[in-house]
């Protein structure tokens, strides 16, 4: 797969940036002419990953979120969302539906939703070093769907 475009975005891990991050990635992906549903899928998956970083990564200090989105010639959108926070002690546990350490009103569905709305999901995490979530989404697009 050949990379044809890429964008990088760094923001403070503040909840006010959640909307901006998902819209920025969706807007970048729009050059592949995605369907409304694909746009919605991308926004949802990115929102979950960014929210995880904001809620969990930096419990005692301010930190940043690093997003890299790239497009390859096979209409694949790859979005990497990285933090340099506390890391996830047990990734398998964190991936279980409804499991949360986020307290009341956190549904524990973050990773399940990311999986459901993407084609592939990779999670790499090291305690004390941070977490990187990579979301892969193939954009089939409007043109292909209509013909």
């Amino acid at each position, binding site marked *: 797969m050949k990379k044809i475009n890429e964008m990088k975005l760094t923001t403070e891990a503040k*909840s*006010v940036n*959640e*909307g901006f991050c*998902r819209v920025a990635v969706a807007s970048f992906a729009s050059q592949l002419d995605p369907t409304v*549903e694909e746009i*919605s*899928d991308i*926004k*949802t998956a990115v*929102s*979950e990953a960014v*929210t995880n970083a*904001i*809620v969990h990564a930096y419990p005692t200090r301010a930190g940043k979120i690093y997003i890299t989105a790239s497009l390859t010639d096979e209409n694949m959108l790859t979005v990497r969302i990285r933090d340099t926070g506390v890391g996830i002690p047990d990734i398998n546990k964190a991936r279980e*539906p*409804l499991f949360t350490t986020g307290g*009341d*009103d*956190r*549904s524990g*569905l*973050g990773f*399940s*939703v990311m999986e*459901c709305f993407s084609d592939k999901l990779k999670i790499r995490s090291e305690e004390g070093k941070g977490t990187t979530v990579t979301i892969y989404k193939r954009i089939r697009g409007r043109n292909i769907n209509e013909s």
Partner: protein
Amino acid sequence: MQVLFKAEKDVLTVYLSGDIDHHTSKKIREAIDGEMQKMMPSVLKLDFRDVHFMDSSGVGLVMGRYKNAVIYGCSVVVSHISSNAEKIMKMSGLEKIITFEKD
């Protein structure tokens, strides 16, 4: 994001709009809980017709309101939800305890 209320008999309808995410759900939650305490309705209806985006924070929002409502016998109804949001709601099993109204 805007939250509008309509109180009719013992039904409190909440018209949600805009984006529901972790950031906006805090204000929405506070607004609904305040109104619930004042009115003590027997049905809480959450209308999603003007919600343009929702992630799993919306599930937490509905689940949390359900937990509060059920204490004093109030039932929760979710209406006009998009197919995308419905998919997320159903991942949680919420449809087993909450009524989903199409229109």
